């Protein structure tokens, strides 16, 4: 029996996101029905239920929505920042603001994305980090060249 819609095709959205980061591209899914850009990656739009999600380059620009300092002991590496970044395209993501003391990160500060690569037991993992926008950071290929 034919179903009303085709099932999701291709690699899983998590893997696709990783693959783009590995190529130096910070891309998020954009719903072609309602135009919302979404994070985290998934197979349907959480705003409208649409299925047609296209990977768009995003600007990498964002604002610190909230921030905390995890007070890890000095002997274990010292304190570090954990922040929620609101991206210019709408969605929020957890990350870390670098290049500034963990407790000097302020809500409302403009930040810019950078892709970093970490070695993990399972292999490389690409993650998105942020620097203060004033610091003139770069590193996201095609940053600002996103569609729409």
């Amino acid at each position: 029996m034919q179903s009303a819609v085709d099932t999701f095709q291709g690699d899983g959205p998590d893997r696709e996101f990783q693959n783009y980061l590995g190529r130096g591209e910070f891309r998020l899914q954009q719903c072609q029905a309602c135009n919302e850009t979404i994070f985290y990656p998934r197979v349907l739009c959480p705003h409208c239920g649409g299925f047609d999600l296209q990977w768009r380059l995003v600007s990498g620009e964002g604002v610190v929505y909230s921030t905390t300092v995890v007070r890890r002991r000095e002997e274990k590496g010292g304190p570090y920042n954990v922040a929620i970044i609101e991206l210019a395209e709408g969605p929020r993501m957890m990350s870390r603001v670098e290049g500034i003391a963990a407790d000097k990160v302020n809500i409302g500060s403009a930040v810019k994305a950078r892709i970093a690569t970490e070695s993990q037991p399972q292999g490389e993992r690409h993650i998105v980090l942020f620097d203060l926008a004033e610091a003139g950071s770069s590193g996201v290929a095609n940053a600002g060249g996103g569609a729409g």
Partner: protein
Amino acid sequence: MGHSLRGTAAIVGVGHAGMGEAAGGRNALDILGDSARVALAEAGLTIRDVDGLFTGSSFHFMPTLSTAEYLGIQPSYFDGSMIGGASFVNYLSSAALALEAGLCNVALICYGSNQRTSVGGLATMSEQQPYEVPYAPRYPISSYALATARHMYEYGTTREQLAEVAVAARRWAQLNPDAFEQADTSVEEVLASRMISDPLTVRDCCLVTDGGGAIVMVRAERVDDFEKPPIYLLGGSSATRHRQITSMPDLTETAAVESGQRAYEIAGVGPKDVDVLGLYDAFTINPILFLEDLGFCAKGEGGAFVAEGRIAPGGELPVNTNGGGLSCCHPGMYGIFPVIEVVRQLRGEAGERQVNGADIGLAHGNGGVLSAQVTAILGTAATL
């Protein structure tokens, strides 16, 4: 004309055991079983009478099965929906529905944990969030810290106001012989304690204790068979807006807005009618958020609202009269305890901490990282 579920079920037995530090070598189910024994004895029932089982666990993947086996029962209806610590407030509504539908006749809602004496920290089976893992937030405190920081940013809430919540909880605990933390404390002491995830210190965090609790619920038509004054479920509702903190639409407002509105509507009451509250205080920001979201003060005014002892003994609004998760007990999931405390207050059994003339109580459960919000309104026979 009231809602069809209002007052259909009543709590006729409550009990707790092992609160604080359970005696050596007791496991989670021992503490649960002990709590169940106490609650059933209050109701004049035995474990053989239980045919409805509602439980969640920090240690058992299939908690209803493990618990039924341990207790030696074969319930005709069971529910183990896991929404974190809020689960146990949620079970009040599912038990009432199952009782009303005749799927069971005696519902036992129960929980037990030996996390303090076994793990020595938070015992949880919660999975890590893949898009949080690389940044290593401390679970769950960093998520609550992020919500707190945003509330401070938007509304000027202060660390002193957060500390007032911890001090109020301790002052209530000092009136409750079963509460784990009894030592005097002060706003200054809370502010000076060790920072864990800014702006939350160790004293802004709930305790790590053992403990168990149990609640026996029956259809309202049977309440005359029981010795204790029945405490009716007037209304209850659950709500969620997110699972992980980055998906929370507004870090300063929880889904308690929806759970509260729906619970009030079923109960036919509003915040002004509530005499006593049990608000799940995993962190000091929680009662501030819930007082706002449940309509006790305007959004953003929760910090000022809790200051100057308003929710402490002798204050205008009694909140967490057992000492809460901050000072009474927090065995991993705390949700059953605010219900038990509200029941004791409505029965007039709360001793030194009794709120005079309490007829309507509100118990509010929180689960995950502000992710699940569950409100229950309870009342005495006078409120039917």
